[in-house]
């Protein structure tokens, strides 16, 4: 076994030298470094380096996403069959073993969710490789996470060609034109999501696309509903919603929605793992949760004060209890996996508090007031992506101001040579 591995290692090493300086070198290196951590040694500065690299960092985020992907594959099937039952008037009681973790459900996941993952990675990575070869830099790891996030934040029945177009747009315009991983202004996964939303608005919103099969059956005799919880609330159908789903459905994730956003429980676990492994910023997560709670409380207060009546368009969402905003829609997923993107988020610790808070705050606000589409997380995060450098600028100015204040008490002594010159001047005068 070890002999075999040695030869593979040696063979790849020889190949690496053969590719060196060639056009295809980045493409080869991407595969090579995937198999083997490189043999590179330090050349300047510290002679030793810590164990982490960007691949490991990205891999940690992917590990935090895998349980969500698996769950979402089952949930895609479960929602499909539950909607059919509901349309036929069959009462359905959730049971994990009997009707959730079943082959039947998994099959829907394999045929509907897995292709999204494959298209997202396939298209995105091909573009990354092309750019790496053209520009002569290494294939960077940023897309490993983006490619996993994208299928989890789109509706389950998103046509694959739409996804492919959106991914191409997001990777090229959202990232590569700025210089690749680490240089982009907007979160690439959310750029892809926003492209889908604005390019195909009739497809991407409404009450059909969230459950597999709802679109193709629409209008027919076997039509099923694909309404999300936020969709119910936006139409002031809160009572109907709570008859169908209870809080625990929302928390565990047995609800319709974008592929991976439903299970607040698994997102919470993923978030805790990312905080524990020190990969994602707990400051952003905590402050975003606080921000959304504050906004939710304000809306609840407006309803309690009687400023808004049941006839208002916003009544359903505004009267929704403030903390429940966190367990429906994409808020939790956005906070844990999107807002914490270090490249597009605030980079200073103090800035992260402000940045996170505003994401939570604006997410709930947009969610309530958006007339076309009752969700606002991706818009709020993209908006804050744009403002993150401004937040950082003012945080850093604080540090600069402190330094300038200190400067007033600076003790600067004239150089010996200066004082000599001054003495000389005095003499000549």
């Amino acid at each position, binding site marked *: 076994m070890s002999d075999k*591995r040695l030869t593979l*290692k040696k063979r790849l*090493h020889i190949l690496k030298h053969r590719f060196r300086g060639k056009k295809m070198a980045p493409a080869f290196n991407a595969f090579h*470094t995937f*198999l*083997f*951590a*490189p*043999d*590179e*040694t*330090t050349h*300047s*500065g*510290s*002679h*030793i*380096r*810590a*164990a*982490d*690299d*960007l*691949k*490991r*960092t990205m*891999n*940690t985020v992917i590990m935090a996403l895998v349980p969500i992907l698996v769950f979402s594959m089952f949930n895609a099937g479960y929602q499909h069959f539950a909607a059919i039952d509901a349309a036929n008037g069959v009462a359905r009681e959730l049971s994990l073993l009997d009707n959730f973790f079943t082959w039947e459900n998994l099959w829907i996941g394999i045929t509907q969710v897995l292709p999204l993952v494959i298209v997202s990675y396939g298209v995105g990575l091909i573009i990354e490789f092309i750019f790496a070869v053209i520009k002569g830099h*290494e294939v*960077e790891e940023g897309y490993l996470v983006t490619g996993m996030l994208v299928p989890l934040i789109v509706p389950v029945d998103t046509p694959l060609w739409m996804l492919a177009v959106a991914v191409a747009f997001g990777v090229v315009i959202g990232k590569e034109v700025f*210089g690749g*991983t*680490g240089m982009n202004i907007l979160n690439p996964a959310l750029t892809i999501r926003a492209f889908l939303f604005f390019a195909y608005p009739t497809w991407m919103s409404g009450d059909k696309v969230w459950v597999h099969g709802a679109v193709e059956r629409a209008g027919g005799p076997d039509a099923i509903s694909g309404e999300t919880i936020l969709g119910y609330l936006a139409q002031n159908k809160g009572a109907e919603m709570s008859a169908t789903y209870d809080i625990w459905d929302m928390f565990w994730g047995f609800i319709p929605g974008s592929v991976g956003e439903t299970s607040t429980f698994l997102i919470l676990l993923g978030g805790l793992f990312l905080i*524990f*492994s*020190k*990969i994602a*910023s707990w400051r952003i997560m905590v402050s975003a949760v606080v921000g959304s709670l504050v906004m939710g409380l304000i809306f609840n207060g407006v309803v309690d004060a009687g400023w808004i009546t049941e006839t208002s368009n916003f009544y359903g969402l505004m009267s929704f209890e403030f903390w429940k905003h966190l367990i429906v829609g994409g808020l939790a997923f956005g906070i844990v996996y999107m807002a914490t993107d*270090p490249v597009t*988020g605030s*980079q*200073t*610790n103090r800035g*992260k508090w402000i940045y996170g808070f505003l994401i939570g705050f604006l997410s709930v606000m947009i969610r309530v007031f958006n007339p076309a589409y009752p969700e606002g997380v991706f818009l709020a995060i993209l908006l804050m992506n744009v403002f993150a450098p401004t937040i950082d600028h003012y945080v*850093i100015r604080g*540090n*600069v101001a*402190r*330094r300038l204040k*200190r*400067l007033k008490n*600076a*003790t*600067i*002594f*004239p*150089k*010996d*040579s*200066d004082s000599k010159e001054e003495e000389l001047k005095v003499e000549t005068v």
Partner: protein
Amino acid sequence: MSKDIRIKKGLNINLVGAAEQTISKAVLSNVYALNLDDFHGITPKMLVKEKAEIKAGEALFYNKNREDMLFVSPVSGELIEIERGARRRILTLKILADKAQQNLKQEILDISSASSQELKTYLLRGGCWPFIKQRPYDIIADPDTVPKAIFVSGYTTAPLAADYDFILQGKEKELQAAITALGKMTPGKIHVSVGKSSHSSLAGLDGIELHRVSGPHPAGLVGTQINKVDPINKGEVVWTVTPQDLVIIGELLLTGIFNPERTAALAGSCVKAPKYYKTKIGAEISTFLYASGVNSDDFRLINGDVLTGTKTQPDGYLGFYNTTVTAIPEGDDYEFFGWNKPIFNKISATRALTFSWMQPNKKYDLTTNTNGEHRAFVVTGMYEKVFPLDIYPLQLLKACMVKDLDEMEQLGLYEVAPEDFSLTEFVCISKQPHQQIIREGLDLLHKEIG
């Protein structure tokens, strides 16, 4: 008391192969050499020709911009080679040592009555001035400046570095002489730091402000202490001297002789018997390396500690400022799925399937492998965890990279030296060359403003 410095942010890098606290005498080196890269920013002008006979303490060259700043020979003998590089830049000066050493003796100065100017001239002539460095710019101090304070760090936190408490034993007299002389050159204080519960020879000196320091690396770096005690503002100058250099300065003042003797730690996992050696500046490293023995063919020899030292070879020479020589394994090997499997044998500042956080006191055998490829800055908030200075490290690095002078100045480049960024470089996920970036930034700022 508030004079104590307590550092919370940082990271102790515990490595295998710490030097045992016994001192052996290294065999005499045949050839001694000065490596001119040690003197950053100095343009040398030779005073003696090749094949010339010189005494120990006699000047070899001077600073082109400052003719009275002399650089002297550590031993007496024949200048056998002036090694030159591209554009005839001088790289190293090699001296074949005499069997019987002859010292050039300076006239002894009465420290207590001498003026600041007299003392400066004495140190410049005696070859001890290059031991005094200044911030901003981390270069040899300009003798014309009046520093607002002088800092001496006697606390060792760098991995495997020589323990000052140990190597300064019995040097009180020299230390005191040097401190008294330096005290005349600044109207400010001389800040001296020692470990929290140390019995360092430094602690009992007169004319100093003593700080007891505790906390992880980089608590022992003088830049950290300056930032906590009396940060540098634009226009201000601070001098720094390392304790072992104070000893040489003190001896010159007391005896008139430039005695470049060093107690150097030979450490690292590739050394069979890591311990301390009595040797001299410029001595060939093989004179003591092989006395301790090495246990590997493929090792990297470092003049200095693993974070800030420079790469050398067994036939290289002990650096002008170094008291540590480290030998660690080269890491020029591939690791199968090195980026995703759990790691138990390397240090990490995260917990991303890396487990060094579970055993903070375990000693590691780290290699020179970069553990990943160079990338653009991606992750944020990492550096701040190991960077105790009141400075935004990522932003300052970026300002240096884009050569934005205003931003460099405002974000505090005057306060730092490359070594302050050695730990952020160690933890950097994007494997960026932090110390090089800062060095280039400082040089640019010096050229444009200083």
